[in-house]
C-alpha cells in the first residue's frame, strides 16, 4: 500500500495574515502545516500501521519554506517527502495547484510504483476553497470519497462516512482512489522526540515543474483562471456597549436588541 498525502504550508491563522502588493498572500510571515492537513497525515499513518509494507509520502507545492510542512509530516511518521518548487508556481489558482499535485502523484508512481490512495484534508486554512481534492481526482481520473468523518480501508476498498446537514452518507470507492478527511476523523499525533530525530534522515525529493511534465504556462499567474479585482482590509470590529449583569442583564440585552429592531 502506497499512500500520498498533500500537505500545505500556510500563514499562521493566529498571526497577522495579509497580502503582497501583487494581491498574492504574504507568505513571508510565520507559517506552518495547515491544521486541516494534519488529519490527513494522521489518517494515512493509521492506515499504514495496519498494513504490511505500507509507505506514506507527503507532498507539498510551494516556495522554499513550504518544505516545513513536509518536515512536520515526516516528524509525525511519514516515510518520505516531495517538494515541488518552481518560481513559475507563484500566484497559481486552485486549478493550477491541482494540476501540479496530480502531476506529482504521477511522478511518485513513476519513481516508486503505484499509489493506491491519496489522502487530503478538507480545505487549506488560508484559501479555504475546498475544491483542490476533487479537482486532483478529476485530473487523475480516480474515484473520490470526500469529507470523510470516518474511513476504513480493506480489501482494495475505501469506505467513508460523509456527514451532511440533514443526513450522513456511507460511500465506497475501489482503490486507487482519493479520500479527503475532516477534523472529525481522528486526533493527530504530536511528533515525538524520536520522530523529530528520525525525520532528519528521511528522503526528501525536490522537483521543478519541467521534471513533472507540467508546462509553466498552465500554472502561476500565467495560467491562473481567476484574478483579484480589489482587496480591502476590513476595519476591525470595535467593542460596543458592555454591561455587567447585576440581576437585569438579560432584560438589558433584550432592550438593546429591541432598540436595534432585532426582536
Amino acid at each position, binding site marked *: 500500500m502506497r499512500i500520498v498525502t498533500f500537505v500545505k504550508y500556510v500563514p499562521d491563522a493566529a498571526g497577522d495574515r495579509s497580502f503582497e502588493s501583487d494581491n498574492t498572500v504574504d507568505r513571508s510571515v510565520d507559517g506552518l502545516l495547515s491544521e486541516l492537513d494534519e488529519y490527513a497525515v494522521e489518517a494515512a499513518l493509521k492506515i499504514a500501521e495496519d498494513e504490511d509494507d505500507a509507505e506514506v509520502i507527503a507532498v507539498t507545492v510551494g516556495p522554499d519554506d513550504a518544505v516545513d510542512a513536509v518536515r512536520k509530516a515526516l516528524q509525525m511518521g511519514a516515510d518520505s517527502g516531495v517538494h515541488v518548487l518552481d518560481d513559475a508556481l507563484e500566484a497559481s489558482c486552485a486549478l493550477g495547484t491541482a494540476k501540479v499535485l496530480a502531476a506529482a502523484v504521477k511522478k511518485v508512481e513513476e519513481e516508486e510504483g503505484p499509489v493506491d490512495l491519496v489522502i487530503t484534508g478538507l480545505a487549506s486554512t488560508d484559501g479555504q476553497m475546498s475544491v483542490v481534492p476533487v479537482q486532483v481526482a478529476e485530473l487523475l481520473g480516480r474515484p473520490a470519497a470526500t469529507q470523510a468523518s470516518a474511513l476504513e480501508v480493506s480489501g482494495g476498498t475505501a469506505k467513508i462516512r460523509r456527514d451532511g446537514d440533514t443526513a450522513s452518507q456511507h460511500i465506497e470507492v475501489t482503490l486507487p482512489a482519493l479520500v479527503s478527511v475532516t477534523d472529525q476523523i481522528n486526533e493527530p499525533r504530536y511528533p515525538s522526540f524520536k520522530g523529530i530525530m528520525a525525520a532528519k534522515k528521511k528522503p526528501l525529493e525536490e522537483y521543478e515543474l519541467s521534471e513533472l511534465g507540467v508546462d509553466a504556462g498552465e500554472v502561476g499567474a500565467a495560467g491562473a483562471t481567476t484574478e483579484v479585482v480589489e482587496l480591502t482590509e476590513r476595519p476591525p470590529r470595535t467593542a460596543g456597549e458592555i454591561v455587567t*449583569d447585576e440581576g437585569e*442583564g438579560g*432584560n438589558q440585552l*433584550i432592550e438593546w436588541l429591541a432598540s436595534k429592531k432585532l426582536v
Partner: protein
Amino acid sequence: MSEVLVLVDHVDGDVRKSTLEMLTFAKRLGEPTAVFVGDAAQGEAAASTLGEYGAEKVLVASDPAYSEFLVAPQAELLANLIETRQPAGVLVPATADGREIAARAAVRTGSGIITDASDIAEGFVATQSVFAGSYTVSGRVTKGTPIVAVKPNSVSPEAAAGAGAVETVDFAPSDAAKTARVVSVEEKPQSGRPQLNEAAIVVSGGRGTAGDFAPVEALADALGAAVGASRAAVDAGWYPHANQVGQTGKTVSPQLYVAAGISGAIQHRAGMQTSKNIVAINKDDEAPIFELADYGVVGDLFQVLPQATEAVNARK
C-alpha cells in the same frame, strides 16, 4: 439576454432559500435558468417557485446516478450544460456538494471558480471574505465560464416573474463518473430549527455552557434562531459537529449572532466575524469575544439567557 445557470439546492424537491438568493443574483446578471437535479415530478412541482423568483427555464435532470453516486455524475451534467448552452456564468450553492460539483465542472471546462461569494456584480465580479473576515476580496474568473459558489444568506430573495418553463434534460452520465457509490444514507433527526447558515439569527454556546445547552436552545427558540456551538463544545461532545461555527465548521453571517459562554478564539471568530450584529455573554470580562461584540453582558449565562428568553416571550 445571456443565460445564467443556477444549480438548485433542494431537499426532496423543497427548494432551499439559498436557491432563491442565487436566482436573485442571476436575475441581475442575465436570464436565470434553474437546473434541478432529482426526481422529475419534484422538479415540475418546484418549477412554479423557481419561476416566481425569476427562472425563465427550469431544466430537470433525472437519472438514478445523481443520487446513487457522489457528485461526479452531477459535475458531468453541469459541464455538459456549460458546453452545450454556453451560459454567461454558473451559480452553485456553497455547500459541500455544490463546491465539489462546481470544482469538477471547472476542470472539465477549463474554467475558473470562486467560492463563498457574498455578492456578485456585473461581469460576475464576486465578493468574498477571507482570513477570518479580516479582508474583503473581489475577484473574477478570467478563463472559461465563470463558476461561482454562492454563500447562503448573502442577499434577500426578490420575487421576479419568470416563465419557469420546464425542460427535461436528456443526458446520461458516463460509467467513469459512477465510481463513488452511496451505499446507505442515515437521515439525521431534525431539530425543527432553521439551518445554521440560512438563519437570520444564530444563538451559540461554548465552553461556558459546561455541556448544558438548554438555556441556549430556549433563547434560540424564542428568537426563531438556529443553534450554533464553538469547537470546544463540539470537541467535548456536547453538541453535534453539524452545528459548529468556526474555521473548521460553518461560516455564518446572520443579522444577529449571540455568543454565550464563548471566549472568542480565532478559530471561532473566523466563522462569525462578518455577522451584522454580535452579542456576547461571558463571565470573563477579558474574554476576546467582547472586543468584537456590539453589545456585551458580563455575567453568568445561566442567569442572563433565561431572563432574556422570558423577556423575548413577554414581548410576543
